[in-house]
């Protein structure tokens, strides 16, 4: 029976050996930036199609644009990038760009006006989801030959269908879709007339600070530096972004020194790492808004008094100070702070008594029952539950339905919700990006299918406000334009079916030796090329 005992001992030893691991390394290499983030939203890296948060983070570091933001001075607004300078014609419809000399793509091809012409025409012709950013200026597949033209090797001319605020046009060109691709390389990889769309999905042809090393969907993205970058070779030779879903996991990795930057820490983990040796937490105001919307197809919700009551039944302060702590600030207008024309009035705060009075005036003294759809994400579930709680105190019984983002979105787009808890991020750094969706609905019929517009999704019929909002995009006087947006927002705040609640603050855990990290504020995406260690 000896053998049995020795076997048992052997088994125990095996278990013990299994348990002894290898101690983790303490530091990442000096020329490498290691980031934990959530990159499962990326579906393509083609700038003409890419339209996700993580995609724009990558794209900004790979593709140069005609005009761009300087990460060290975002407040300055757009400035020259691949276009050195530009002039505007007297009628305000034509902009002529002069391209920067001596810039090369990663392939070694020079960057010319032909490439810029190709890239913008391509984006319009492909007509993918983000194309509206360009087509709203009247470009379409049929007229690009006349409206976007390289008039010389280094001059590009674009002509809009009418006069717009120049800042509006140029702001739109800083969006991901404005990325300039290497026309020669892309056309070499064209398949079936797709203008290289398939190839660019997971290959890159830019002139920016980095080129793509590898992209494993939902796992990681590696960027490799471009030593010939026209602003100088980046200090970080490799940037790796690993997809880590869990905040607590990101925090563990950061504390262990396995990563330099943790992008998605929740308030508890932020509190946990602050004050830890060698770790700093940065807070940066981003453009994303958190709101709830009331579908006007629902008779009860369409009652103005009910909408007002509900705006008073939200525990803004309570949420901000507890589970959203440090990650959101209270904001109640549709333009994010730092945008032209943004207002910071917060007329609403939790007032159950007032809410009850308003409900009684509306004819619902005992409240009513209503559905709330929420996508499956911790933060939103908690907001949903808080709403359920405070609405309940005024007699409104809220039934929460939780589903994946895609499921909930489908319901929302089909206008089948009662109340939708959502987030909205601006698409380009101009006030029109949010104004055009929150305050424009030119055709409220179901058949119109204006699914891109939040006002339409909530069946909010606003012919007059739509007109006012669209009038603001052609106003070239900055101050007048700002005033117009302010007026629209005040009106919107009062009677719209949107209770805008919070604006995002992104908190990033950073290893102390990483310097100059800029996430892009509310207007653009992250810039790795200025980072040093």
């Amino acid at each position, binding site marked *: 029976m000896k053998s049995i005992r020795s076997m048992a001992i052997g088994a125990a030893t095996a278990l013990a050996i299994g348990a002894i691991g290898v101690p983790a390394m303490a530091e990442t290499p000096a020329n490498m930036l290691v980031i934990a983030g959530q990159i499962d939203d990326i579906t393509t890296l083609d700038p003409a199609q890419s339209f996700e948060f993580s995609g724009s983070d990558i794209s900004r570091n790979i593709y140069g644009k005609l005009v761009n933001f300087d990460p060290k001075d975002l407040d300055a607004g757009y400035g020259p990038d691949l276009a050195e300078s530009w002039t505007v014609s007297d009628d305000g419809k034509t902009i002529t760009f002069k391209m920067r000399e001596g810039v090369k793509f990663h392939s070694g091809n020079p960057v010319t006006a032909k490439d810029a012409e190709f890239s913008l025409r391509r984006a319009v012709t492909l007509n993918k989801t983000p194309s509206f950013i360009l087509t709203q200026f009247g470009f379409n597949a049929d007229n690009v030959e006349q409206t976007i033209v390289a008039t010389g090797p280094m001059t590009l001319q674009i002509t809009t269908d009418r006069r717009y605020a120049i800042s509006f046009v140029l702001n739109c060109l800083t969006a991901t879709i404005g990325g300039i691709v290497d026309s020669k390389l892309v056309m070499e990889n064209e398949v079936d007339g797709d203008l290289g769309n398939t190839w660019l999905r997971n290959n890159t042809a830019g002139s920016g600070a980095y080129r793509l090393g590898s992209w494993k969907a939902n796992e990681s993205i590696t960027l490799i530096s471009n030593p010939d970058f026209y602003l100088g070779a980046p200090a970080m030779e490799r940037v790796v972004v690993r997809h880590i879903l869990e905040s*607590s996991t990101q925090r563990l990795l950061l504390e262990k020194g396995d990563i330099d930057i943790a992008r998605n820490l929740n308030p*508890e*983990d932020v509190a*946990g790492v602050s004050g830890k040796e060698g770790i700093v937490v940065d807070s940066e105001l981003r453009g994303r808004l958190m709101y709830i919307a009331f579908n006007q197809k629902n008779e009860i919700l369409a009652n103005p008094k009910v909408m007002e009551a509900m705006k008073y039944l939200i525990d803004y302060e309570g*949420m901000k100070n*507890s589970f959203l702590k440090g990650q959101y600030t209270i904001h109640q207008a549709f333009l994010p702070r730092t945008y032209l024309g943004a207002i910071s009035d917060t007329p609403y705060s939790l007032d159950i008594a007032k809410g009850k009075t308003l409900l009684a005036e509306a004819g619902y003294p005992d409240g009513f029952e209503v559905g709330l759809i929420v996508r499956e994400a911790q933060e939103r579930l908690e907001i949903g539950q808080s709403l*359920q709680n405070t609405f309940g105190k005024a007699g409104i019984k809220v039934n929460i339905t939780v*589903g994946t983002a895609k499921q909930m979105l489908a319901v929302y787009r089909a206008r089948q919700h009662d109340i939708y808890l959502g987030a909205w991020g601006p698409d380009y750094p101009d006030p029109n990006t949010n104004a055009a969706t929150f305050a424009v609905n030119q055709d409220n019929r179901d058949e119109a299918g204006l699914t891109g517009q939040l006002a339409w999704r909530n069946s909010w019929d606003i012919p007059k406000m739509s007109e006012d909002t669209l009038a603001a995009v052609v106003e070239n006087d900055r101050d007048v334009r700002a005033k117009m947006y302010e007026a629209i927002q005040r009106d919107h705040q009062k009677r719209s079916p949107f209770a805008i609640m919070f604006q995002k603050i992104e908190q990033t855990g950073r290893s102390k030796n990483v310097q100059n990290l800029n996430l892009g504020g509310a207007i653009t995406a992250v810039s790795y090329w200025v980072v040093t260690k």
Partner: protein
Amino acid sequence: MSVSDPPNQGLRAWLLTDAPSSRRHARLAAWYQGWLSFRANPMTMIGFAILLFLVFIAAFAPWLAPHDPFAQDLAARLQPPGSENYILGSDGLGRDILSRLMYGSRITLYIVTLVVIIAPVAGLLVGTVAGYAGGWADVVLMRITDIFLAFPRLVLALAFVAALGAGIENAVLAISLTAWPPYARIARAETLTFRNSDFIHAVRLQGAGALRIITRHIWPLCVSSLVVRVTLDMAGIILAAAGLGFLGLGAQPPTPEWGAMISEGRRFILDHWWVATMPGLAIFTVSLAFNLLGDGLRDVLDPKEGSN
């Protein structure tokens, strides 16, 4: 065949008799002897006791719970266990974890009960029909069973929940859909052994139809092996339900389902370990109890594995 109530002091002797006076007497005696050997195993009794306790808590949750499980108090969130008012601490929205666990036991029992009603019955139906009918029906039904068996179970459940929409009832349905095939196999195997036995032939000669034979004669014979299997599977059912809840596809908030509670508590795990740990312990305890009980039942009902 009526049995008069035996005098109390003689109950034990009556139950232990070697010469039962009636069918009911024999059955009761067998049950009692099973109960005795069952009782002799302390671990089984522990499992049994835990489950009784669980049922008790679930039944009286409204009276036992110190707090309303849904009452939020953002000012008193994430209180550690043992703090005033919160014996097991409070969660991210300031709700009492103990109260939520107590109410959660109702959901757990609800899910288990429903699955246990649906899956074995479905399996029994398919298995006995296939086994009794034979031929094409057998081939077709068993192929279907095989298809379901070849699926990754959690993935299948996920797919169904995703297709039907999240919610407790759908989770129950999804788990049942993945749980029935093994029962069908067992039932079929048992049916095959009985099908050609003399007593079934006898019944058939008496003019009983297939339906009557299956429901009145074959089903009762399959039950005991199914019961053992079901009890052993209960832990699996609880874990599967918790897994779905953990992925956000089970019970919907603010329902205090244990798996969902772990998922909610996961984000606090580094600094506030109790939020995820308490429901985890609850799941563990209950599924352990079912396993202890199932293990004991197997000893009683399945002599092959018997302890003596």
